[in-house]
């Protein structure tokens, strides 16, 4: 887990704010995979994940010139933007399902889908997609994005104890869903 406090991106963000071409390229190389991975795991949809990642950067370009050093980590701010965008889309999905249930496909993966998945990667993706959103968010932030429990708690607006509870439940559910795979 990354140490809280000093922002490792501070200099890069300052240079982006000044329109430094090299800094912009470095920043995209560094952060785009990270934002795409976050959105992909939260949404389980490659197209929507790309849209979210792109939008995060549009907002980052606007934010960089006004960013005050010491106001927190820019990476954490980007995570917050990405998570909000993901939740907007997840909420829209639920509303669509509620508005027009007969014509909408069931987006939540089930055991059958899990068994039909071709390989470990897709089975894990299906199992992650089947988690309740808050559990998925906790495991994505702490395990995959490697944020500290404190950073995850701040982003999720809950206590560290709540993050730990969500993480433990998420891992229990994933262990159960992937048990067959582990045995093989």
């Amino acid at each position, binding site marked *: *887990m990354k140490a809280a406090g000093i922002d490792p991106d501070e200099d890069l963000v300052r240079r982006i704010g000044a329109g*430094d071409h090299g800094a*912009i390229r470095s920043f995209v190389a560094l952060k*785009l995979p990270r934002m795409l991975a976050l959105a992909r795991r939260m949404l389980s949809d490659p197209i929507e994940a790309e849209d979210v990642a792109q939008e995060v*950067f549009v907002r980052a370009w606007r934010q960089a010139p006004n960013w005050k050093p010491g106001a927190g980590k820019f990476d954490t701010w980007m995570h917050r933007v990405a998570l909000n965008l993901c939740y907007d889309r997840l909420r829209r999905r639920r509303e669509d399902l509620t508005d027009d249930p007969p014509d909408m496909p069931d987006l939540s993966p089930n055991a059958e889908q899990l068994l039909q998945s071709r390989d470990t990667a897709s089975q894990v993706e299906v199992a992650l997609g089947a988690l309740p959103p808050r559990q998925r968010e906790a495991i994505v932030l702490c395990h995959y994005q490697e944020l500290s429990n404190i950073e995850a708690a701040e982003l999720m607006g809950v206590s560290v104890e709540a993050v730990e509870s969500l993480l433990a439940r998420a891992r229990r559910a994933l262990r159960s869903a992937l048990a067959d795979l582990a045995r093989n």
Partner: protein
Amino acid sequence: MSPLRGHDMTEISWARFESLATTYGGDIGRWPVAEREPAKALTLADPIRAREILAAEAELDALLDGAPAAMVSDALRERVLASAPRLRDRTNGWTRWLTSTPILTGAAAAAACAGLMFGVLMTRDAVSAAHQEALSNIAPAETILSAETSEERTI
């Protein structure tokens, strides 16, 4: 665990060790910073017990890590770069100001055209003058021959 918990701790219980493993996984390096050292100390105290707890969680970690992150396509990267602000390392502030003002841009274009026309005309005149001078320096062949003949005669 509160954010401060662990800072004052010198040791953790096996129950906490197990709880941390089922929460953060089988790699102590991914546990909360404050609890890593006490956890390592406990591991040294009873390596077999610690290994049993950690191995079960490491198995799940390996499965989770078996799902690689999505690859960034060239198209997405280009879209993101295209959304970035104007790049200042290619042009200085004056150039950007000039090129961003339509009237000044038009004036610059007109000046460039005038300069080009002037250059073309001057070049044409210069070439013409040089051409004529060159022609005047070339004596007709018979004149040269006659000059050589006259020299021979002189000798």
